[in-house]
């Protein structure tokens, strides 16, 4: 590969490594080899050195080879912002029903996020066995519960923070602090995309607003901006996508022709300048994206059956909007967008009002949120399955942490609990109708096969054919990774 085929960023990487190589550090030599030779890239199994994606500036998002054969070609993350209670949905705890109203042993002095807790309280939602597997799931999500046989539950997830912002940061970027690249950005950095006229990474915010950690969820952090997620949903298109009304089609064509003329003139004086030609290419790509993004967002050609299945015409406006977002997610995945984040729940607009933060009146609020979420999400899963997309699409449902088995003192809701909660997956590469790990008998703390967010991220990258220890980017003294210095692939859930 020629150096000048690399982007500016890629060239810099190479340069820096060349200097290190001059300095005689072994690490650098390995990295360079990995960068330059595919053999080196595939061979060494024990090698933990970074594998640099080969990024061409004319097409920085062109599809790149993974480290090994992937199970998943694309990922859908469904994120319920606000900490959706595992104890009222997926994690069945008969002991919690038995000890309803009794104190949790050893919890007298427990001070959680909002302070003191009262007694154990069973879920207001009834748990029933579902599907052929008989998995107990509550009535909170009746339609999703019917999909139990498709799901692979991780009941022993743990988070590092018990406050929303940092915890949502961790779930999407691996770090509790602001400013780190999100997993979608890492995926598009490593793999590019097979769909060349849509963004590689799309975030679909809830109709009520952006999630609590806002754009951190789809930030490119210190990675080049080209890997940043593009945020839009069925109601709010990509900013500046459409040709302004003032510009006629003919004017647009003439503008582009003239621009091409100017840029080519300049390029004649700067032959082989990859950045200048990359910018010319980016205008061509933008034009393609204008057409394709408008097409993907146009739901009018979906059949009435499909629209009804999702709930697009529902009288509940929030639900109908979220349903359109679900449909948009399917259409994006269908067109091979690499990474899609679908959000349910928004920033705080009153405690538990816009999201799943059920501190004081959990049932009252969940009775509002669950119907918005349940049918459209279940329809999305069914639709993905029906179209065969689950064969090579990984779906991950998550939230930032769980909630306490007790109600808060003097309240009818549950406080934050990062010590144990549930995440589920379905689709490419994971077991079906399977449950992994467990919390204790009250659902307070993960005790069996304790899993971290690093492990979850390592697993997602693994299913994409990436070694999480080798996808890295040098920033301020450190080879930064999605999984920091942690993470192990959760072998137990792999199909």
């Amino acid at each position, binding site marked *: 590969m*020629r*150096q*000048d085929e690399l*982007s*500016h*960023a890629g*060239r*810099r990487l*190479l340069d*820096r490594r060349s200097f290190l190589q001059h300095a005689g550090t072994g690490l650098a030599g390995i990295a360079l080899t990995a960068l330059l030779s595919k053999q080196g890239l595939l061979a060494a199994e024990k090698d933990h050195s970074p594998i640099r994606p080969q990024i061409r*500036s004319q097409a*920085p998002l062109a599809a790149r080879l993974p480290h090994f054969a992937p199970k998943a070609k694309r990922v859908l993350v469904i994120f319920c912002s606000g900490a959706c209670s595992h104890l009222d949905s997926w994690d069945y705890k008969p002991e919690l029903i038995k000890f309803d109203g009794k104190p949790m042993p050893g919890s007298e002095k427990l*001070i959680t*996020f*909002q*302070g003191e807790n009262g007694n154990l309280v069973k879920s207001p939602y009834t748990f029933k066995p579902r599907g052929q597997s008989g998995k107990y799931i509550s009535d909170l999500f009746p339609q999703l519960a019917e999909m139990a046989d498709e799901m692979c539950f991780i009941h022993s997830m743990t988070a590092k*923070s*018990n*406050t929303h*912002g940092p915890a949502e940061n961790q779930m999407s970027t691996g770090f509790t*602090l*602001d*400013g780190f690249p999100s997993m979608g950005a890492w995926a598009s950095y490593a793999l590019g995309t097979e769909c060349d006229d849509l963004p590689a990474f799309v975030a679909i915010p809830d109709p009520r607003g952006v999630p*609590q950690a*806002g*754009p951190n969820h789809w*930030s490119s*952090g*210190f990675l*080049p901006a080209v890997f940043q997620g593009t945020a839009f949903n069925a109601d709010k298109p*990509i*900013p*500046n996508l*459409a*040709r302004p009304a*003032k510009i006629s089609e*003919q*004017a647009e064509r003439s*503008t582009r022709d*003239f*621009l091409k*003329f*100017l*840029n080519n*003139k*300049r390029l004649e004086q*700067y032959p082989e*300048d990859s*950045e*200048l030609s990359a*910018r010319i290419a*980016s205008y061509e*790509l*933008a034009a393609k*994206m204008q057409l394709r993004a408008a097409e993907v967002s146009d739901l009018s050609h979906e059949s009435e059956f499909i629209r009804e299945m999702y709930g697009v015409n529902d009288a509940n406006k929030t639900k109908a909007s979220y349903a359109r977002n679900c449909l948009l997610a399917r259409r994006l995945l269908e067109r091979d967008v690499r990474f899609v984040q679908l959000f349910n729940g928004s*920033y*705080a607009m009153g405690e538990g009002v816009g999201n799943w933060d059920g501190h004081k009146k959990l049932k009252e609020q969940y009775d509002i949120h669950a119907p918005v979420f349940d049918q459209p999400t279940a329809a999305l899963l069914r639709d993905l399955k029906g179209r065969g997309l689950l064969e090579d699409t990984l779906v991950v449902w998550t939230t930032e942490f769980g909630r306490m088995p007790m109600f808060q003192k003097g309240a009818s809701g549950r406080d934050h609990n990062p010590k144990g909660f549930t995440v589920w997956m379905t689709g490419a590469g994971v077991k079906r109708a399977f449950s992994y790990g467990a919390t204790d008998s009250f659902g307070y703390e993960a005790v069996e096969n304790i899993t971290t967010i690093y492990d979850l991220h390592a697993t997602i990258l693994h299913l994409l054919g990436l070694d999480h220890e080798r996808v890295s980017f040098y920033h*301020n*003294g*450190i080879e930064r990774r999605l999984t920091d210095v942690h993470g192990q692939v959760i072998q137990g859930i792999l199909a």
Partner: protein
Amino acid sequence: MSSNLRTYSAKAFGLGLCLLLAGLIGGEVTCVAASVDKSKLPPAATKAADFIQDIQPIFEKSCYGCHGPEKQKGKYRLDVRETALKGGDTGPNIIAGKSADSPLIHYVSGLVEDMKMPAKGDALTAEQIGLLRAWIDQGAQWPEASGTVAVGSKKSHWAFQPPKRPAIPTVANGRWPRNPIDSFILAKLEQNELRPSPPVDKATLIRRLSFDLIGLPPTPEEVGQFVKDRRADAYERLVERLLDSPHYGERWARHWLDVVRFAESNGFETNTPRPNAWPYRDYIIRALNADKPYTQFVLEQLAGDAMGEDAATGFIVGGPWDEVKSPDVNLTLQQRNDELHDMVATTASTFLGLTVGCARCHNHKFDPISQTDYYAMQAVFAGVQHGERPLRTKDYEQRKQEAEKMEQFLAGLDEKLEGFEPLACMTVNGQTNLPLRAPVNARRNVERFAPVSAKLVRFTILATSNLEPCIDELEIFSAGENSRNVALATNGATATASGTYPNSDIHKLEHINDGRYGNGRSWISSEIGKGWVQIEFPQTYSIDRIVWGRDREQKYSDRLATNYVIEVATEPGKWQVIASSQDRKPYGSGSKIEADYAQTLSANETVELHSLLQQAEEARQKVKQWNTRPTVYAGMFLQPGVTFRLYRGDPLQKREQVTPGALEEFGPKTELTVTTPEWQRRLALARWVIDPQNPMTARVMVNRIWQHHFGEGLVSTPSDFGLNGARPSHPELLDWLALEFQKSGWSIKAMHRLIVLSNTYQQSSRPNAESSRVDAAGRLLWRFTPRRLEAEPLRDAILSASGKLDFKMGGPGFDLFEPNNNYVRVYNSKKEFGPGEFRRMIYQTKPRMQLDDTFGAFDCPDAGQIAPRRNSSTTPLQALNLLNSSFTMQQAGFLAERLQRDAGADAKAQVRRAFRLLFAREPSSEEITRSLKLIKEQDLFTFCRAMLNANEFLYVF
């Protein structure tokens, strides 16, 4: 035989289960046993084993992967003396003097099933095991104490050596160099058989230099004058003019603000704005324009409060701050440690180019920075809190004195008014003929009663306006002459309470009678809606007045006690009610002045009351006025407590106490102790940073300057000069520049002058296929590498071209987001812009993590982490933004209007004007023809929109 056996907890049994069982049977680990046949151990070596020479390399190669700084399998860590000798889950592994009994030797010899070590990689050779045995038998000498690092080869790293003045290289093409920079550059080019490019044409040069130094394009007139200026020093004059421009500071401040992660909101989910953070930005602009010596610049940013530059310490607290607080102690500690981490890591990366932040959990893996160093620096900042403090402007002292004077005057009036307060009435069940007293208010309430003897006074709250009740000060006055507040702790009184709000620095029981007002020195009950607080005097007093309030400073009005009872006693248990809310009007009901004070007033008394009330009201307004002094988000400073080293960075695992200080292995020693006043710690650290003995400081700064002139630093990792950073492309040049920097009195402008006057800087940017083959990236500087404008100069340049740029300097910024009052800030981009948003982009009120819809896509840093170097990516979204955003559409319209204004109705003249404004050159005849065709077929607006998207406009050549 039994002495040859040793008992192990078998790994196969499952360590977790084993510990669980251990817990059940009382803490003793008595699991299944395994035995070792010591006769199978390889013999100990006969030589004297040296830890550094012989032992550490074995550990490094075979053990540290699982038992080192990152992982401690089995809770065993082998790279730190203390833990290595102490052992892990299974107890001690090294028994000094007894290698045959040391489990470590058993494991590495493969004699314990399931505990064969190393678990990964090759087994140790008999020779290696022999060395280990000899080392243990000889006493397991470990030369270094815990918390220090193996320095050795690390210290020989180039960046840790003092800069040496290099000889100016001799070059073959002796006529080319204009100053020593050129000699260094040319020497390297010649070594690589490369030649420098010819000088750039003057029009391109002035455009390059203008963007570079002031971040704005030259006007067509400036270009014309410069091109025509035949004087020998025309370029020098241009350089001086631009360096003297106030816009220079605006351009270069932006670079600095990237390095220090400055933003004007808190980050995290609330992302609340910091409306008073902008004075820091103004400080940077002023300091750069004034060419403050860099040493002074450093001192002020770390300790400006001690030298009359309050805003400068905005540096320390420029990072994110999680304002979501919780009674959960673990979370609170974690948040505080994250805040301090940001201060430590940013200080080190900014001024030293060192990643000290990496030593939070363990000794630095590459550089000679110990974990103790990290916590020594943390101790320097341990007294810094996020928040605003007064910005001491010139009239600050005067305003403060006026406020205090007026407060005293008001206190006198209040006392006089108390004489008019009706007595509290204690008739049972509210059966009273007297009119009700005024309702409670948050500022100040007076309870007057007939003199009564009291040793104890109890204030019991039965209901509040909301939440847990708060009282900022409870004052109890003695009756008669020389009345004084006998409740003060300084008068010997002690306070007790039903309970106090947990885990708060500002709400404490001792604040109830400390003589200081305001929410920041108040007591809050631990229970919602109730609680009591009691004052006990050292002796019995006759008292006749009690004064209390929620917040005398009138900033808070919540948490007000609305239903309360005050009782006194001369001995415990014999309580007597002396006042209550019973005879007050209900909280929130209106208050009528006449009715609220004593009812039976003479005409004169009524006049006096009204006069006093009016004076008091005026005085209150004046106090407020004098107290409204500007503040700045530049940190609050308090004397800190003790700092400890935290094992693995975990705030719950405190280890030894750490003295504040700088990095042990660099520069001079700092003379700090655990009792050094807070500000002196920061000042001492700053002095250490700028000490000429410190090898990093000058190099790091000249490299930053170089980077922004050429697009790439001599060291391409500008905030990491450590072993993991990049090597300099021209080490001698870097040293030469660092020494010149010091010699110039640390003048940043002198460095600019030196660099931009070099022939290296003035080379053409045209490519050259031959040179490209050798050095495509242009690291050896055989040409000036073209580069895209960053977001800010791009937006400024568009405004400049359209003629709409507002040059107003300084002060609060402009907002690109719609106003929003939700309690977590919601950021929606403004749809339309007006003159208010036409200032230079450095004055955009910059929220953290939230990028502008149009220019954010141009690699604008989000200030979540530091951005010592920006990416420069090319994306279709950039194209869409620049084509379709309401900003471009609007500005293209303004540009069209301007062209008509400047050039009249002649389309050809308009085209010429546009090329001069945007590209700083004349159009070719072909370009004119094509432009005219576009204008004719479409319109001038369409032409303008296209021109604003041209590569030639977006790039500096």
